[in-house]
């Protein structure tokens, strides 16, 4: 038989152990939550880091051909495309895009324009408003955009007529 004092001690010990177990469970759950939140925070911070980085400028080569009623020279085509970008988007985009004619076939009037990944869409869109090059009526038809000069040359060679 246990005395009253012993029973009281056991009851207190039991209640204490239950309380501690409950507290530890709560603490564990809270820790798990915190860890989860921490992971999420880490993820978000990584995303922000990614977004915060300035975009790497990559070269893009646009293969195109010119449809005209007469021969159009290299410099005239480059000037017409540059003027179209400037007319449509202004000086800022021209300076970012900096479209340069790096290859041009005078006979078949096909060529490659070099720009970058940020501005390639602007250059392609501007090609639609090119209507004239030094007095001659022209249409510029973009054919393919690629990131490799070797591939661009291949596409250009594939244009036969």
């Amino acid at each position, binding site marked *: 038989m246990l005395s009253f004092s012993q029973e009281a001690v056991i009851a207190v010990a039991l209640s204490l152990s239950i309380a501690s177990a409950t507290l530890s469970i709560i603490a564990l759950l809270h820790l798990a939550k915190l860890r989860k939140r921490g992971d999420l925070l880490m993820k978000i911070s990584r995303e922000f880091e990614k977004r915060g980085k300035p975009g790497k400028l990559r070269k893009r080569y646009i293969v195109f051909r010119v449809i005209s009623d007469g021969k159009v020279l290299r410099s005239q085509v480059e000037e017409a495309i540059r003027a179209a970008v400037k007319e449509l988007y202004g000086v800022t985009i021209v300076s970012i895009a900096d479209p340069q004619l790096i290859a041009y076939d005078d006979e078949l009037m096909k060529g490659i324009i070099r720009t970058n990944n940020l501005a390639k869409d*602007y250059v392609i*869109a501007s090609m639609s408003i090119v209507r004239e090059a030094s007095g001659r009526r022209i*249409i510029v038809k973009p054919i393919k955009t690629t990131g490799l000069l070797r591939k661009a040359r291949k596409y250009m060679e594939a244009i036969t007529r």
Partner: protein
Amino acid sequence: MSYIDFGVTSSELDKLTLVARRLGYRALLVEDCGSWASAVSMNGVTLVKKQVISSPNERELKRALSTSTSKSTVISVKPLGISAARLAARDTRVDAVVLDLETLNYIDKQQFSMMKRFSKPIELPLKLITGGERALAKVIRRLIYAAYIEVPIVFSSKASDWSELYYPKSIAFLLSQVLSLKPGDLLSGFTTIPREILVKKGVKL
């Protein structure tokens, strides 16, 4: 890819079709054409007759539609009044409603929702894109709304000369920046939507 220009006004069709072929066009809809049959082939490009009806009210539009000659002729309506615009949106004989500076005031939100309900496309003359800033701004506002409620859009160059033709991909890139749509979605205005109209009219491509 084979494109369809929803409206050219050229008289020099020989040169125009040659250039259109090089740009990847398969068919051209010719306005104010001569007395040739509804669809002819020239230099590998199908030429389809198109009629543009300008009308200030419902009664005149009904009269014009009843006197329309051939079933295979594609009909676009330039509504110059609210009642004409509403009739054009619901009449099955009308294939498209023209959106330009003259019709701008009559093509409102209700018109767009009616056009969507009757799946009637809006025809955009591309010359407006290269027109003045003020006019372009007005058209762009309507176009953004049309794109928002998903009214189909078809494009016409209204080219009277070969150098006025557009390369569809470039135009799609240009408009995608304004309308916040994918260039691929806008290209359907040169491909699937006009093709569906031509197939409905019985034109073989």
